[in-house]
């Protein structure tokens, strides 16, 4: 019942009748309270999952004490966005020893002590989400490493006191780690040296870690051969050399975010072109890459489905020709601010059969005729378009009707023409 604003405690009581309820999701239900949820749990014996994120104005003892009655079966508990204290976590840990997943993202009040008292009892935990629990330090990670040897997924975004020292213990003791989110943490190359020992790692998020350089990527490339998803958003110290290391060692990469890594050039993209399984590539504001770099990618990565080139000011029609020819699986493309003309755009929209979602705001070199021809060339295939608001009054009504009739939703935006980077 996610986000059902009109469900309240009385509504929940209607569910008491049966006793085979296994999973309850009342996240974002503003009118559900601890009492209502507690009474519902009271009537059930086999509940496996509870998601009460961003609901229950306060977590009250009536709810917490009921957890012990389902302590055997409860494996997933999400309490995102609620205020939770160490004593609450102690109660949860004491009651629910079989927890596999715990969600505490954006929870006020979560401290190292709280985490310690939780994990000392819950050694089966596989997923731990403490996004934005900004009080946590490396001590919390130490407690997790000691107690939760089976942990597979750690979400630690925006925990500023977590650094390379905390990751060392995890590396030695938790060999099953598959996913770790360290966005906006103080992560440096030494931390990546520890992470490199996680040979099962599949998903690694390092957004906003500006201290990471090519040296760190060499570590990752040396051992994380199963890596599938890598996020380096705004890791501005990364250069082409780092990409070379990744391309050599992490051949299974499917999703890669390099937005605002502005030192990257066409040479770096050439390295990436050996990643045959690449499906999603984000390259926002890479001002030094040109149509040549895009050509390498198009030729080498036939599985490409999503490509974001917003603010790649030096990418011109040559890039679009290559995509038109080689990227037959492309479904979503952003070329806002690119240096493309109506000719390249027309060829692109006419050639790619799977292309459904295009964002093209501020294409300053495309004339009105260019847009008219290009959009008609798409033959009703487009389902989502993002265009500059000013075009709405100059494109022909026939074209707009044609787009609407073929089920295309257009988002008109009024953004000023501003160059960054």
């Amino acid at each position: 019942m996610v986000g059902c604003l009109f469900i309240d405690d009385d509504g929940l009581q209607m569910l008491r009748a049966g006793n085979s309820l296994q999973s309850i999701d009342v996240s974002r239900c503003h009118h559900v309270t601890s009492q209502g949820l507690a009474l519902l749990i009271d009537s059930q014996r086999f509940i496996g999952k509870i998601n009460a994120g961003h609901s229950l104005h306060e977590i009250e003892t009536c709810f917490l004490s009921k957890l012990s009655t389902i302590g055997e079966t409860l494996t997933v508990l999400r309490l995102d966005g609620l205020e939770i204290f160490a004593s609450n976590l102690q109660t949860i840990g004491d009651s629910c020893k079989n927890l596999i997943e715990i969600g505490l993202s954006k929870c006020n009040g979560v401290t190292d002590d709280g985490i310690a008292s939780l994990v000392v009892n819950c050694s089966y935990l596989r997923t731990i989400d403490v996004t934005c629990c900004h009080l946590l330090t490396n001590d919390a990670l130490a407690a997790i490493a000691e107690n939760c040897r089976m942990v597979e997924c750690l979400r630690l975004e925006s925990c500023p006191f977590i650094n390379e020292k905390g990751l060392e213990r995890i590396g030695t003791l938790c060999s099953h780690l598959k996913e770790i989110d360290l966005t906006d943490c103080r992560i440096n190359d030494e931390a990546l040296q520890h992470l490199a020992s996680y040979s099962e790692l599949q998903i690694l998020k390092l957004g906003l870690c500006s201290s990471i350089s090519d040296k760190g990527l060499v570590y990752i490339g040396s051992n994380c051969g199963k890596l599938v998803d890598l996020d380096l958003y705004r890791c501005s110290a990364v250069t082409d050399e780092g990409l070379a290391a990744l391309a050599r060692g992490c051949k299974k990469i499917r999703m890669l975010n390099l937005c605002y890594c502005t030192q990257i050039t066409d040479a770096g993209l050439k390295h990436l072109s050996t990643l045959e399984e690449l499906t999603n590539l984000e390259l926002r504001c890479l001002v030094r890459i040109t149509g040549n770099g895009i050509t390498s990618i198009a030729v080498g990565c036939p599985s490409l489905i999503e490509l974001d080139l917003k603010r790649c000011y030096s990418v011109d029609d040559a890039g679009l020709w290559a995509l038109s020819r080689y990227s037959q699986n492309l479904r979503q493309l952003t070329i806002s601010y690119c240096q493309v003309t109506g000719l390249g755009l027309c060829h692109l929209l006419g050639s790619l059969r799977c292309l459904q979602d295009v964002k093209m705001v501020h294409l300053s070199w495309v004339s009105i005729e260019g847009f008219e021809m290009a959009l008609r060339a798409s033959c009703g295939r487009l389902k989502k378009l993002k265009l500059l608001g000013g075009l709405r009054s100059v494109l022909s009504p026939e074209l707009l009707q044609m787009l609407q009739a073929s089920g295309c939703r257009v988002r008109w935006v009024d953004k000023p023409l501003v160059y960054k980077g």
Partner: protein
Amino acid sequence: MAELVGPRVYSCCHCRNHVCLHDDIISKAFQGRNGRAFLFSHAMNIAVGPKEDRQLMTGLHTVADIYCRDCREVLGWKYERAYEESQRYKEGKFIFEKAKIVKENW
């Protein structure tokens, strides 16, 4: 795939009052008091506190804390004045801390 109906709204983490729109995001790379924050061009249903001078990472600014109008939770701040030319673009804009806002049903 679910169709988006209407604008993508962010709510106050505490009471789910609607406070800002995803389309008004200018930048996702700001630092709030405790972690990541976003710069928005507009805000709604908030109250603005008293102005004060603060030394931020990018220099001296006059800012005013912004509160959720319903529950008074501090959600971030508004830039009233910037003292360096390069920071002027922030004037009149709003910082919302990532930990304090939540996507409303999208």
